[in-house]
């Protein structure tokens, strides 16, 4: 029996505003408990929310970047339920009229194939606080620093058909919100987290199967594993004649399994109604156009431009535009050295390798785009070879100075003087009569050996092209 999975994601992106969505308290992460919760965040009697305009701007930015419709009038509603870290006994969210709806995002499936994933809606809401159950011996601690942090909840259509597609979609969104600078994307700190709705059905069936919702998954890897586990679990239930129960499940990363949290019957009736403390959010064209004018070039557009403008392969363009920082860095390098392909090889190669090795971001790299561009210029003007450039790059990374300084102090300037190279070649020929004999007898493979010997003799500084040319000439002279 062939089964097909149907998946929709709800992604909570924490908006990168300085203050909370309805109060002036700071949103900075990691402060001591309850030091960033003001009277409004605590839900004291008599307090009232005032909407943070910046959060609205960010939501609109997201909407415009995902080809979504922007509601000219959206409404905040109260979602009522009791929980100790929910100070007011309700969460201010948007329900019937979200600020953003009906958009899409294309994901790459590999081999140049793309798939369009619908975005049902994206709405603004406030985050709750945190309950800490470990440290208080039989009691729970409440930290309300996070209470009131602005979230954009992005709900996809059930268009995803595998865990891999879900991850591709999530990664694409992750890159996008960072491009837009509306979310820092920090998954460890919970700035970008995901709930997955999963169901399965027989291939060819049009109706959806009963779905379960997996809550609060906070890494790409866990999303993939949790969804795959859940698909397998549901198939097993159905194939053994059972029925999937509509419920909320939790993913336990340690055991790599999902387990039931609450069933539909136990679910809260949230008693949504429009929040009478807040006016509807009315947006005019001028505001929307103003936000549109602040939109950066989006990842898909940038990727296409890299292909066309720099003549890069689609793969390279994709890698280089994965984050805005990487793309900006690449473009700066390419501008300085004037050779886009060389710049791409270096940024994707040695530079990215160092970032990965040291686990740091582009912005924290000790080598600037300008400096890397200058290094590549020395390759282009034959001052050094590509191989020597790697040595220079490592020295630059270690803080030894600019490319030119390092080439100078280490004496790495390439030898292009024909006479000097000829002299070295003659020494190598003299020192290796047996190989010369074999070469002349037709074993041309040995050319590499001679090149290596000459390069070694020149400490890598001889111009490889020149070495090749002269070697062939001198070896054949006999």
């Amino acid at each position, binding site marked *: 029996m062939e089964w097909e999975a149907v998946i929709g994601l709800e992604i909570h992106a924490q908006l990168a505003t300085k203050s909370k969505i309805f109060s002036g308290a700071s949103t900075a992460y990691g402060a001591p408990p309850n030091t960033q919760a003001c*009277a409004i965040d605590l839900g004291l*009697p*008599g307090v009232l929310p*005032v909407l943070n305009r910046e959060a609205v701007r960010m939501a609109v930015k997201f909407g415009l970047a995902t080809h979504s419709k922007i509601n000219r009038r959206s409404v905040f509603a109260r979602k009522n339920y009791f929980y100790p870290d929910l100070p007011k*006994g309700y969460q201010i969210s948007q329900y019937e009229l979200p600020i953003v709806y009906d958009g899409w995002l294309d994901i790459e499936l590999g081999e140049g194939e793309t798939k369009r994933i619908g975005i049902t809606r994206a709405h603004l809401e406030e985050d709750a606080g945190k309950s800490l159950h470990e440290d208080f011996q039989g009691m729970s601690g409440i930290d309300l620093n996070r209470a009131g942090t602005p979230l954009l909840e992005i709900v996809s259509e059930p268009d995803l058909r595998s865990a891999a597609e879900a991850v591709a979609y999530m990664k694409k969104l992750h890159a996008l919100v960072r491009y837009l600078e509306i979310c820092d994307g920090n998954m460890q700190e919970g700035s970008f987290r995901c709930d997955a709705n999963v169901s399965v059905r027989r291939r060819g069936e049009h109706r959806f199967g009963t779905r379960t919702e997996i809550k609060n998954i906070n890494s790409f890897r866990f999303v993939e594993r949790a969804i795959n586990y859940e698909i397998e679990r549901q198939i097993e239930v159905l194939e053994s004649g059972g029925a999937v129960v509509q419920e909320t499940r939790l993913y336990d990363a340690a055991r790599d399994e999902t387990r039931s949290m609450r069933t539909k019957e136990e679910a809260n009736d949230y008693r949504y109604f429009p929040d009478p403390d807040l006016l509807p959010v009315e947006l005019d064209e001028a505001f929307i156009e103003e936000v549109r004018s602040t939109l950066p070039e989006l990842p898909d557009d940038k990727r296409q431009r890299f292909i066309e403008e720099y003549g890069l392969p689609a793969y390279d363009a994709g890698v280089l535009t994965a984050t805005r920082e990487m793309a900006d860095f690449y473009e700066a390098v390419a501008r300085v050295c004037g050779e886009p392909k060389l710049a791409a090889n270096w940024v994707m190669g040695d530079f990215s390798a160092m970032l990965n090795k040291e686990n740091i971001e582009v912005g924290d790299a000790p080598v600037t785009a300008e400096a890397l561009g200058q290094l590549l210029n020395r390759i282009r003007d034959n001052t050094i070879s590509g191989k020597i450039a790697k040595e220079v790059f490592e020295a630059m990374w270690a803080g030894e100075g600019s490319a030119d300084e390092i080439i100078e102090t280490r004496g790495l300037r390439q030898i292009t003087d024909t006479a000097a190279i000829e002299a070295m070649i003659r020494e190598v020929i003299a020192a290796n009569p047996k190989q010369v004999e074999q070469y002349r007898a037709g074993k041309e493979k040995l050319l590499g050996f001679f090149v290596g010997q000459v390069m070694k003799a020149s400490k890598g500084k001889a111009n490889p092209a020149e070495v090749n040319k002269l070697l062939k000439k001198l070896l054949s002279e006999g």
Partner: protein
Amino acid sequence: MIDKSVRELSEDLHARRISSEELTRHFLSRIERLDPRLNSFITVCEERALAEAREADIRLAEGRAGPLTGIPYAHKDIFCTEGVKTSCASRMLDNFVAPYDATVTEKLKQAGAVMLGKTNMDEFAMGSSNETSFYGPVRNPWDTERVPGGSSGGSAAAVAARLTPLATGTDTGGSIRQPAALTGITGIKPTYGRVSRWGMIAFASSLDQGGAMAPSAEDAAFLLGAMAGFDPRDSTSVDRPVDDYLARLEDDIAGLKIGLPKEYFTEDLDAGMAKVLEEALAVLRGLGAEVREISLPHAHLAVPAYYVVAPAECSSNLSRYDGVRFGYRCENPRDLEDMYKRSRGEGFGAEVKRRIMIGTYALSAGYYDAYYLKAQQVRRLIADDFRQAFEEVDVILGPTTPGPAFRLGEKLDDPVTMYLSDIYTIAVNLAGLPGLSAPAGFIDGLPVGMQLVGNYFEEARLLNVAHRYQQETDWHRRRPPEFD
């Protein structure tokens, strides 16, 4: 001293004929002597009031004083006051000392008014008789066996007995106007959005509005002028300049068009009330006003719509009282659910719990459309009725209440009858309009009021009409005989 108007008191203060400290001591001593019979205060702030009075005297001496500087007032215990208990007359907040001032508190402080204390009220402003207070009922100074009305019953009784020249109130369905009528004083609820709700503990957010209570319209104009104004901390506050209420008090009302809703003037209207209103209309006609009949066809739907919207909002607004962060928490909770249930079960009184249950029900899945949504539609119809009426008339006049003050306990076990005591005031809140109640006569020795309703932001007109009326009548000067 207690018969002087705020204007006269202010003149005396500015002329240094009396000090604010003397004035404040005078009212504090009246509270001490007379309030045990009324129970109109929850907290009396003697030392604090005297300190504020001395501060006001310095401002008066230095010429930095405004019209309210040095004038004592009583503050409904629904407004947050930094450092002073703000209980909302609930066991739930019996231990709550607000860490911040309401905007109204702040504005009155800046005006130099002296806060005598915090007045009793129905618990969380839910009630029409001031019998639901955790601190016991307030009594009506005209007959201490009767209720003063509610929910601003403490403020009303305190003003009526002249324990204070002025008091603040809040009005969600009539909570300023109904007790004002039943105690023979003037009370105005301004347009929704005119007075900031920041720091005013919420009952029903889309209906709650702070306002002023005083013997006369002129006195109320002094207080309202200091309370009103745009506040960026309240998103529903309206950014629009405040009219000069005092400057417009004396405006001529010749040609003023007064509308009488035919739905109010039926054979169901109490005969005594009909007579009182007839006499009031004669006075207003004498001042040149024209009277004509209007229609508010959806008036009969106001009470049912209100008792869906207000409880719905209250059920959500009161969710924050969960025993977790502040307020009452039950002893030795077994677990979280037990803490919630007992903290709320023990911390709230019966009427509050009744409304939370009604509201929770009305918002529940499957009932929302039939109740909450329908009530909001009715609300629009009611507002449309008024909009049409104001195309024809300047103010609408009617009774404030069906009759005079009822006996303590009389309606307490009959919530529907109790709810109907606000039948004339509720529509005004649903539409967000300004309404004023002014003393208009007596029935069986008990005061009753007439209600004036104006178009949006027409507070100045309401105060003007009431003031001109009060220049021709002395109902607002009558004081309960046993509270000299």
